[in-house]
């Protein structure tokens, strides 16, 4: 939960972070908290857990999912495939795919095949990436 929500409502109401690395998660949560742009953040270290959450009937609408690709068991791509199959193309307003430098250059093309994937970033997650999500959400509304 974000500490800076006193004056105005943060533009990103619900965000999900899916990343198996504990250190990365802590670091990204710091960046997200400091930005004041996110109202509510949920994080998962296995993609399957994030998928289980998305399948719950009374969950809120998800503004953005920050998705790591290289994860044990279910990879980011497998998550995108499974979520699209279960929930259709718009299981979230935006998915931001987080690439690591070791990734294959073809991975970006592979990610592009999912319409819900609106942005690709190279790790680590930074404040500018969150600002970009705010822009994309504004376009999404309009």
């Amino acid at each position, binding site marked *: 939960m974000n500490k800076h929500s006193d004056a105005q409502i943060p533009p990103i109401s619900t965000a999900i972070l899916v990343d*198996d690395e*504990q*250190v990365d998660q802590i670091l990204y949560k710091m960046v997200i908290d400091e930005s004041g742009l996110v109202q509510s953040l949920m994080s998962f270290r296995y993609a399957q857990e994030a998928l289980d959450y998305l399948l719950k009937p009374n969950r809120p609408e998800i503004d953005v999912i920050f998705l790591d690709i290289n994860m*044990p*068991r279910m990879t980011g791509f497998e998550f995108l495939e499974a979520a699209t199959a279960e929930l259709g193309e718009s299981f979230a307003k935006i998915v931001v795919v987080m690439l690591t430098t*070791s990734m294959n250059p073809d991975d970006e093309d592979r990610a592009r095949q999912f319409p819900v994937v609106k942005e690709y970033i190279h790790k680590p997650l930074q404040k500018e990436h969150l600002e970009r999500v705010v822009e994309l959400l504004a376009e999404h509304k309009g």
Partner: protein
Amino acid sequence: MTEKHYLEAELEGLIQKDPEMWRFLQHGSLDGVWYWDLEAPDNEWMSPEMWRLFGIAPETKSHDLAEWQDIIFAEDLAVALDNFNEHCADPNHPYDQIVRYRHADGSTVWVRCRGIAIRDEAGKPIRMLGAHNDLTAIKRLEEQADSGRIAADAANEELRTFAYSIAHDMKAPANTLYSLLNRLSMMMPVDRQAPQRQLMNMSLQTIDRMRVLVDDVLEYTRVVGAETAYQSIDLTNVANDVVSVLAGDIEATGATVTIDPLPTIDADAMQMRALLQNLVSNAIKFNRDSVPPEVQVSSSSGKQRGVIVLSVQDNGVGIPLDMQDRVFAMFSRLHLHDEFAGAGLGLALCRRIAVNHGGNIKVVSTPDVGSTFSVELRIKQPRSETGTEI
């Protein structure tokens, strides 16, 4: 001897009577014919087709021996002359070689050149009949395939060297950073909850992961990059060595490692050691909380003759069925880094080693019961000079 088919006998007669038959065979199957007078060796009749193959107008030539010797490659002429001398001395030695000629346009023409000496009553060679077949198209394809393979080998070698150098050069700064962070950590507030302390711990965790990654990439490239050198290897000795290297982990986890008698096989010493070390260390590492690892290294005969199955069995966490096919892929991991450390290269290396030895690796596993990794290996390697014949 069976009697000649009437058509074969008829054809032999036809060829003798009708020169058209000979010309048909010559045009249909040959790219040049020559007939050489060994008693007057300057005289050699050469068919028009032979000259046309080299891009030369036949009417410009005068059936002189020197005319073809001028355009054949010098080292190929030497081979042909050697064969000629031996064939003259011994009819059983074939005059048959692939030689290169220089085409009028400067290109190379590859010719299979065969010949037979015609001898007088005393057995002395007096004439020689020869036939050419054009192999240029085949040879050009061969050259292309060779150069493609050489380029691919060179590119692979370059990538291996590159990966090795990168991993090697990253090792020193990673170690230095680790030492620096450790020193910094000693100056930190003692309070475990202090944010500096937490960030410092995360930094140490990250650099630790980097060191594991660098070490694993280094081991992978070192083993994969080296030529597989077969020698007679007593796998029992290798397994015992591995157990002493892993003594620290064995003690820390309270593991029991049992080594059954293992055979001696033709294998690469470094690769066998890496194989067993990875499998045994995995068997110890992927244990269930509060269940001391029990590891058994054993062998059995394979389904095929001359093949053994080397097995490493554990009582650890096991692998879900739908994940079993991906454990051998590079950088593939099934667990979080804080559950089990590792870069996801160990089993990829094991598979590579098995394949290098003409074998394969499989896993049978039940979650929360344990896993058995089985490597099929040949007892004898082809062209191996050591080891005992089975």
